[in-house]
């Protein structure tokens, strides 16, 4: 219960802080000019992002709190340690997303006021995103691996092969897009660079780490799904199915967000398609978090009746 109250307080603080940052800080003049927005349109645009984002964060917090409470309840059991790690990963995701949103807005404003710091602030924002994703997916992966070990079995070789192939394909495309669209220098022909790093450093500190993070995420989704197939109990399995699906969808939306950034679309697209892309990604994330919340709730209910 104390954990729930703490998380609600943290969520409320983050939403209020994000809303204040978004509404009170002046917008990037280049964006206002590029999309020809009036002051009123700008406020509407900001609110149209704040409200669904706040709902997604609430769903993420809700899911992570339920998982955390469930893992505490079964802490003395064989699967308790696994759930605790998964819950910790989900909490890092839940807290990390608003933290990054607030930080990136503050850094963007700082860069607007001090243009010579643009590259530094962009680099810091990307590493913050990478750090949160790495920490979250690492713990979720560790917890999922513990669950897999409980089955005393392993997924078949072809499942490993298909997962590996899919990851290799995704990473290859990400590598191609990132190195093709970005530059170690400041500006590419289409507009602003994305990472402001030399290519070798992009490969070493962005592409390879993200590939490893997605590897953790894919393995976590695979192991959680495998546990769901092998674990005994019709009712228990149905509850776990939602959790497995949710983790997979959240991972996909995280990868999609990175692709979106790598394309540097924010510097090229018109406003309407840009909003469509943003809302599609937000919807995907919301679906994932809701599935995690529903799965956690069903698992919790089994322990409460």
């Amino acid at each position, binding site marked *: 219960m104390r954990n729930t109250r703490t998380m609600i307080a943290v969520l409320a603080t983050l939403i209020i802080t994000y809303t204040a940052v978004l509404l009170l800080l002046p917008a990037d003049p280049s964006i206002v000019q590029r999309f020809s927005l009036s002051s009123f349109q700008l406020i509407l645009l900001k609110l149209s992002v704040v409200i669904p984002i706040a709902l997604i964060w609430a769903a993420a917090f809700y899911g992570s709190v339920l998982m955390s409470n469930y893992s505490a309840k079964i802490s003395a059991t064989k699967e308790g340690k696994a759930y605790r790690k998964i819950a910790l990963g989900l909490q890092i995701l839940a807290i990390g997303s608003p933290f990054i949103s607030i930080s990136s807005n503050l850094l963007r404003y700082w860069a607007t006021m001090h243009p010579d710091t643009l590259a530094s602030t962009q680099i810091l924002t990307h590493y913050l995103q990478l750090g949160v994703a790495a920490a979250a997916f690492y713990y979720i992966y560790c917890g999922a691996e513990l669950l897999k070990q409980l089955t005393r079995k392993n997924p078949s070789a072809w499942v490993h092969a298909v997962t590996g192939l899919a990851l290799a394909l995704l990473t290859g495309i990400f590598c191609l897009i990132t190195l093709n669209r970005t530059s170690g220098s400041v500006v590419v022909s289409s507009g602003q660079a994305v990472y402001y790093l030399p290519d070798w450093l992009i490969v070493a500190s962005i592409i390879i780490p993200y590939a490893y993070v997605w590897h953790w995420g894919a393995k976590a989704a695979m192991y959680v799904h495998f546990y769901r197939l092998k674990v005994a109990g019709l009712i*228990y399995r149905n509850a776990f199915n939602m959790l497995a699906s949710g983790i997979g969808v959240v991972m996909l939306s995280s990868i999609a967000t990175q692709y979106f950034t790598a394309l540097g679309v924010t510097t090229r697209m018109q406003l309407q398609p840009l909003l469509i892309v943003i809302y599609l990604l937000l919807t995907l994330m919301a679906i994932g978090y809701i599935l995690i919340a529903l799965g956690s709730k*069903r698992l919790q209910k089994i322990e409460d009746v």
Partner: protein
Amino acid sequence: MTPANNPLYTQVVDVTMSYLGPAAERFISRQIETHLKKNPEDLVVEDLEILVDWIKVAIALLTEDQRIVDDFTKSLMALAENSPAS
């Protein structure tokens, strides 16, 4: 006597495993302690009818599939028919 040494309790947990998996033993222990007001290792055949009634209510809260509820309770009642009275 520990719960694991009570054959009837072990059989009830084994049946429940098909529905609740790793949560089975916790679930059964909780139903016995809460509704029968006794330790799980003290479960006897005469308790089964009341226990099954409570389990039926609890499982109905966890699934909307009435077949699962009916199959589960039938399997548990079969234990009462097959077990010698204590």
